[in-house]
């Protein structure tokens, strides 16, 4: 260590040296294992010494230093093998395991169960850890609520942890300080405030999902009764809780049991869109299960009424686009029609809307008790009231809807609390403001002027993962520990509690909110681990507590913690329904970004890059509107448009979105960040026109064409089909060329349920000729004697959520290429979600199709490679040999599916190798590709091989389902099935015999190993007739 000190920074000799501390600690603690080193490293002496010894770890991360220097720092600040191990500092560029922990075999990954705490409920995860580096986050397949599956954000938390932009020190006014220095300041403040009961101390936190944290606060509150704890997330549940409070008199969560529901009505609820919607994983899974037609012809039916085009809307059999202000009135009208009370006010519905209303009403009534009405998180409270009333009136409560305690242990109406806090701040009543993991300077409605209010606060403390907009202003900045680095706990949306375990010691010695709150209590030194254990002591007391604790850690959840259903009855009717904003006024609908959420994942490259569902926006957000709205305001796509609202203005790029209701502009939150190397400067900041009064919808906005252009980055644009009927078009001039072609070419095949019943072979209709036999080829056919890997993707249950794409990025070390490269078509994703719009783009149907390498048996790519860099394996995989590839790109040209991806530039280097932290994240089983090399999906061959090795060792065949590809594992609806098609009993082989199974472009004799199960839509025939839908 001494030698490394000189290469790093100058040492302040007055302070204790490493050797002194080491000697001191060695005497006290001796050799201990990694879990307790966490505590050890936190001892103030040590922490201070580290801070003094390496005050500029930052430059160490950012500068292109050697791996050796990096490991030295890591060895010092983390000391995975116990500090005693450091007495002999290894020079080898490996982890300093002097004594390898007994459960660790290098090269063999270990899985740990944990949970990703998220505002809408934790996502129980399994974390794959390679030499104690977490390298993949997966949904916990055994968790009773989630049962595997995940979502893009959960997948991306991995990159979030390794983000090289994370803050790495405790800062005071921009200068590095030690954690003890902060604690000293904090405690002296506490001591001062103790007599007044904590007057002037306020906490502003993101939504708390940790029972331990809530418990800590409740204890602290006893000592400091005047201190305040405000929770605020820009994406909050205010609508729901306001309505719940009004209808039930208490905060309750609603859980929907879609496995029991035959008819689902969504009122602006994007429940298939991602983890933003509470309970997404279970909802998506249950929704998907009822669309498999697995030995039954019973299916659910989905109606969606929505003001913002979402993938949920496009999965619906019947979809109605309304303005945001009309949704509440429609909900009230629907409630009235199904006999769930009546509301004052009303609206004039168009003929189309009335028929839709009529059709939904009839269907709901007919399936009372087997239907569900789901209100949207961003809809007005009145929509929730109507949904409560309807579910009650239809007898759904207890069957398809269950009310439980809220997953948030301290539920509140967050916007109201924030407003009160800002008022306090402005009144000078807030002396110390401790901001926990929030970024209110960036992510609060503009009318609150939060930044100005901060000026009147004495001391601002910011606990955050980044020195973000708030961190820059705060006096104290505490670097936060990521959930993969700390002990905590969290509840999934059904209430099942999970322990959040650290997978790695904090990379930058971060601290958690638990630690800050704990320091307010009588026993400030209780570690987070002990605090968490303390919280669940009673739950785990039955029998052997140690065993129970270990089981909880091992399984990833604590048995019996799921919430019991609550019996509540809605009261108070539908409330007063706001009248739709009439006339020509432009309404704004605000939504969090599907990927970067409220902006907190904006610095995660994967999340920026992965195209958003429906819009295919990447590295951007846009002013989304319908074609008619665009035209009405004299705009064209890519025009820069100024959106003015309440005296505030932003400039965004105009983007036409098929199916968007007219007169509405969708403003996406989460972009336009000022800080972060990835996030900075991407898109516009929607918060700058958000109003706290009605954060999700605002009427009366104005649009102005600025005259400039804004080059929106979309990975897939749509062309209007201008062809006449004679040229193969539809002649209308309103359809998508790509959409028309996808149907003409048999890429998308679907039928309605009655069509399917009449003709189960519908997916093969019009296939002009038989598929040629393998032996018809000039070249001898391959023989697959043992295993033949294949995949089946169910288009009926795919909801286009992008979980597979994000999982693939993590599993296969896929580089992030940046905005410009994405825009010109060089995005590297191995699996993508193709979206096709069918019919009039003003109100289209959409089809999602995950597209990845089809591993053709008769692969066009293999034949044309001049150097044999892409070859066929005996199991039918189509393998890229990166080392052999010279980069002619002929294979990509000849790939009809265009799933091959080329490293046109040195992509991996730009985003990885400068930042050594990202190298740690890489999956060691997958090569990182260099410049000039072709790459593509391999069916996760590394997973196949790992299982094959295990099976070989045990001298057995591979079991069906034993190999799960990353995309399959991530899929929340179980739409992707992988397996051995030679094994006739395997799931995939059975799926391949389904009459609905078809191969895309199989007629050009590629013999694809990936096939699709055609969609079947359970339409309401009567309604379809009256609306004139599905007529072709």
């Amino acid at each position, binding site marked *: 260590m001494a030698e490394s000190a000189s290469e790093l920074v100058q040492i302040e000799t007055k302070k204790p040296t490493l050797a002194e501390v080491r000697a001191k600690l060695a005497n006290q603690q001796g050799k201990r294992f990694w879990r307790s080193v966490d505590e050890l490293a936190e001892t103030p002496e040590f922490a201070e010494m580290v801070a003094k010894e390496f005050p500029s770890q930052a430059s160490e991360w950012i500068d292109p230093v050697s791996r050796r220097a990096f490991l030295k720092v890591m060895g010092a600040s983390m000391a995975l093998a116990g500090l005693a191990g450091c007495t002999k500092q290894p020079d080898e560029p490996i982890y300093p395991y002097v004594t390898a922990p007994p459960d660790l075999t290098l090269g063999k990954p270990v899985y740990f169960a944990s949970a990703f705490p998220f505002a809408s409920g934790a996502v129980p995860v399994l974390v794959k850890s390679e030499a104690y580096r977490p390298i993949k986050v997966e949904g916990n397949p055994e968790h009773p609520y989630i049962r595997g599956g995940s979502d893009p954000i959960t997948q991306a938390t991995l990159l979030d942890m390794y983000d090289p932009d994370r803050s790495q020190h405790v800062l005071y006014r921009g200068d590095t300080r030690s954690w003890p220095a902060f604690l000293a300041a904090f405690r002296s403040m506490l001591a001062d405030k103790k007599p007044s009961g904590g007057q002037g101390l306020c906490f502003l936190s993101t939504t708390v999902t940790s029972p331990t944290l809530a418990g800590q606060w409740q204890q602290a509150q006893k000592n400091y009764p005047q201190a305040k704890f405000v929770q605020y997330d820009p994406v909050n549940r205010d609508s729901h809780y306001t309505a719940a409070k009004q209808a039930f008199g208490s905060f309750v969560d609603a859980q929907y049991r879609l496995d029991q529901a035959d008819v689902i009505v969504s009122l602006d609820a994007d429940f298939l869109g991602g983890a933003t919607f509470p309970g997404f994983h279970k909802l998506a899974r249950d929704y998907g299960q009822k669309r498999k037609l697995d030995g039954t012809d019973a299916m659910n039916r989905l109606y969606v009424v929505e003001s913002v085009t979402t993938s949920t809307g496009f999965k619906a059999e019947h979809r109605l686009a309304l303005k945001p202000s009309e949704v509440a009135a429609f909900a009230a009208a629907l409630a009235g029609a199904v006999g769930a009370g009546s509301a004052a006010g009303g609206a004039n519905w168009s003929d189309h809307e009335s028929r839709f209303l009529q059709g939904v009403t009839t269907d709901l009534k007919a399936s009372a008790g087997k239907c569900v009405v789901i209100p949207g998180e961003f809809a007005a409270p009145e929509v929730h009231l109507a949904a409560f009333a309807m579910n009650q009136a239809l007898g759904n409560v207890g069957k398809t809807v269950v009310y439980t305690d809220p997953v948030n242990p301290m539920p509140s109406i967050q916007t109201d609390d924030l407003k009160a806090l800002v008022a306090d701040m402005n009144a000078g009543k807030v002396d110390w403001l401790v901001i926990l993991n929030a970024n209110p300077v960036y992510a609060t409605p503009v009318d609150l002027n939060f930044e100005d209010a901060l000026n009147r606060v004495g001391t601002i403390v910011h606990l955050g993962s980044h020195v973000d907009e708030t961190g820059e202003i705060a006096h104290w900045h505490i670097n936060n520990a990521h959930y993969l680095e700390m002990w905590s706990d969290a509840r999934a949306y059904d209430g099942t509690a999970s322990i959040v375990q650290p997978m790695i010691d904090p990379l930058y010695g971060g601290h958690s909110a638990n630690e800050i709150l704990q320091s307010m209590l009588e026993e400030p030194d209780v570690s987070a681990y002990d605090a968490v254990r303390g919280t669940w002591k009673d739950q785990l007391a039955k029998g052997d507590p140690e065993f129970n604790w270990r089981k909880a850690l091992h399984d990833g959840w604590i048995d019996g913690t799921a919430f019991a259903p609550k019996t509540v009855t809605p009261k108070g009717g539908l409330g007063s329904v706001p009248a739709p904003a009439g006339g020509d006024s432009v309404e704004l609908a605000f939504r969090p970004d599907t990927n970067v959420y409220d902006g907190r994942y904006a610095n995660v490259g994967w999340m920026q890059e992965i195209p958003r569902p429906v819009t295919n926006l990447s590295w951007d957000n846009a002013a989304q509107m319908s074609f008619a709205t665009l035209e009405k305001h004299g705009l064209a796509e890519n025009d820069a448009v100024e959106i003015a609202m309440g005296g505030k203005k932003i400039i965004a790029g105009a983007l036409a979105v098929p199916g968007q209701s007219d007169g509405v502009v969708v403003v996406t939150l989460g972009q336009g960040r000022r800080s972060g190397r990835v996030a900075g400067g991407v898109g516009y900041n929607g918060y700058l026109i958000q109003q706290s009064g009605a954060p999700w919808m605002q009427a009366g906005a104005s649009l102005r064409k600025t005259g400039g252009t804004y080059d929106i980055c979309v990975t897939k644009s749509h062309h209007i089909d201008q062809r006449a009927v004679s040229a193969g078009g539809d002649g209308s001039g309103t359809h998508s060329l790509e959409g028309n072609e996808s149907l003409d070419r048999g890429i998308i095949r679907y039928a309605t349920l009655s069509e399917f019943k009449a003709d189960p072979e519908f997916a093969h209709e019009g296939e002009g000729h038989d598929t040629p036999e393998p032996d018809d080829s000039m070249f001898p056919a391959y023989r697959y004697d043992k295993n033949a890997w294949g995949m089946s993707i169910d288009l009926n249950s795919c909801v286009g959520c992008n979980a597979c794409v994000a999982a693939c990025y993590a599993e296969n070390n896929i580089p992030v290429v940046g905005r410009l490269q994405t825009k010109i*078509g060089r995005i590297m994703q191995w699996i993508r979600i*193709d979206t096709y719009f069918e019919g009039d783009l003003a109100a289209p149907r959409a089809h999602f199709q995950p597209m990845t390498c089809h591993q053709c048996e008769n692969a066009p790519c293999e034949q044309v490679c001049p150097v044999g860099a892409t070859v066929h394996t005996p199991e039918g995989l189509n393998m890229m040999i990166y080392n052999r590839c010279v980069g002619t790109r002929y294979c990509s040209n*000849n790939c009809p599916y265009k799933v091959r991806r080329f490293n046109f530039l040195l992509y991996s280097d730009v985003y990885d190798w400068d930042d050594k932290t990202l190298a740690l994240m890489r999956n060691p089983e997958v090569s990182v590709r260099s410049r000039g090399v072709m790459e593509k999906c391999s069916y996760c061959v590394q997973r196949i091989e790992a299982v094959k090795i295990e099976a070989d060792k045990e001298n057995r065949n591979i079991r069906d389902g034993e190999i799960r590809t990353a995309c399959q594992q991530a899929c929340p609806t179980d739409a992707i099935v992988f397996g051995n098609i030679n094994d006739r009993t395997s799931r995939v082989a059975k799926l391949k015999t389904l009459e609905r199974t078809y191969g895309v472009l199989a007629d050009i004799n590629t013999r694809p190993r990936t096939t699709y199960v055609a969609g079947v839509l359970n339409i309401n025939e009567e309604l379809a007739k009256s609306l004139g839908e599905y007529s072709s």
Partner: protein
Amino acid sequence: MATKDAPVNNPMVDPVTGEYRVIAPGHSFKSVTEEVSRIVLTSHTPLGWWFGFMVAGTVVGILTICVTWLFLKGVGIWAVTIPVAWGFAIVEFVWWIGIGHAGTLISAILLLFKQGWRNSINRFAEAMTIFAVICAAMFPVLHLGRPWLGYWLFPYPNTMNYWPQFRSPLMWDVFAVSTYGTISVVFWYIGMIPDLGTLRDRSQTKVGQFFYGLLAVGWRGSVRHWVRYETSSLLLAGLATPLVLSVHSVISLDFSVALMPGWHTTIFPPYFVAGAIYSGFAMVLTLAIPIRKFYHLEDLITIRHIDNCNKVMLATGLIVAYGYSTEVFMAWYSASHWEYFMMWNRMFGPMGWSYWTLITCNIALPQLLWSRKLRKNVGFTFLMALIINTGMYFERFVIVVTSLTRDYLPSSWGTYRATKWDYGTFFGTLGLFTFLFFLFIRFLPMIPMSELRMMLPQARVREKAEPIPEAGD
């Protein structure tokens, strides 16, 4: 082709045949030799030459910059992307190789067919072939993702015991182009040996005598030498003749073998060959007309040559037009959705402009060549040659780029927008080509003196001496 109506008093018209002469009257062995060798052996390099050489050299400098940056950064500096993974580089590869074909056709096929008029232009047409092949051969290497591994395309013995993949048309290209380059160089050099002997003998400087002497490999002009020379020329012509047909056929297989709509078509080999000759003759004219003017070689490269080249262009242009119409017909007749859509997209898709440019340049405008008057108009011919070269560039652009922008899966459709590095590389190779050509016309005999001398009436062996009407002195 009757040209009887040409003015009888025009000395360029042979009164016996009524055709334009291949060589202007009044030339003797000596005058021909002097006319050609003075260009090479002069000690006064014309200023115009220096100017052109400098301009071309500057453009070669641009090429060097483009290639250096390409090697440093990767092919990502070009516009190639997914789905259009081949762009300008392959367009230019095919274009340059095509241009080379005229040289081989003139030197080999026309030799076998005993077309004496070819003799004036065959040398520089062959040089053009070689330089075009050099330009073309750069691209398959430059366009590689990892160009430093380009040698893996050759079947060389290696410790990995690993061969190239012989099913790939790119592999066949390697053989086709390398064979073509080799034969062209050998043919060109052997044809030049008698002239190099002449230059050695006439050179006034020691350096010239030494180097031309070295290159002349002891040529003495003995009958034995001439017999061997004629035999080897014929043999090489026999070897080169199939190459005229095979090289571009093989290159067309890069596309035909692939399954992309717009590529996967059996008509490509003949239509690529015709297109190659078409563009090659256009390039011969593009070069011959300014040189003829600059070095006052109107006596040796006459209207007869220009007329003949124009006729070849008209004929090959019609073959190419037939090829295009067959593609259109098959798109409809095959009833294949892919083909139909491909053709619709070529004509009316976002890149439709390139298709109509191609049709205008390659089919519509060249029909003017039916007019004899225009065929003999040097200025018009030069313009037409440039138009056809442009048209042929667009033909390859349409095939390579437009086909790739919209293929099977509509989700993957894309576009192509060339970058400054694409243009820089393209103009750079034009500069390289010109640069090499300037060196050639300065240091080597661009018109074969020996073959031209044989065409003079004096060279005709007669049984009985009789007065020679056009003999000079």
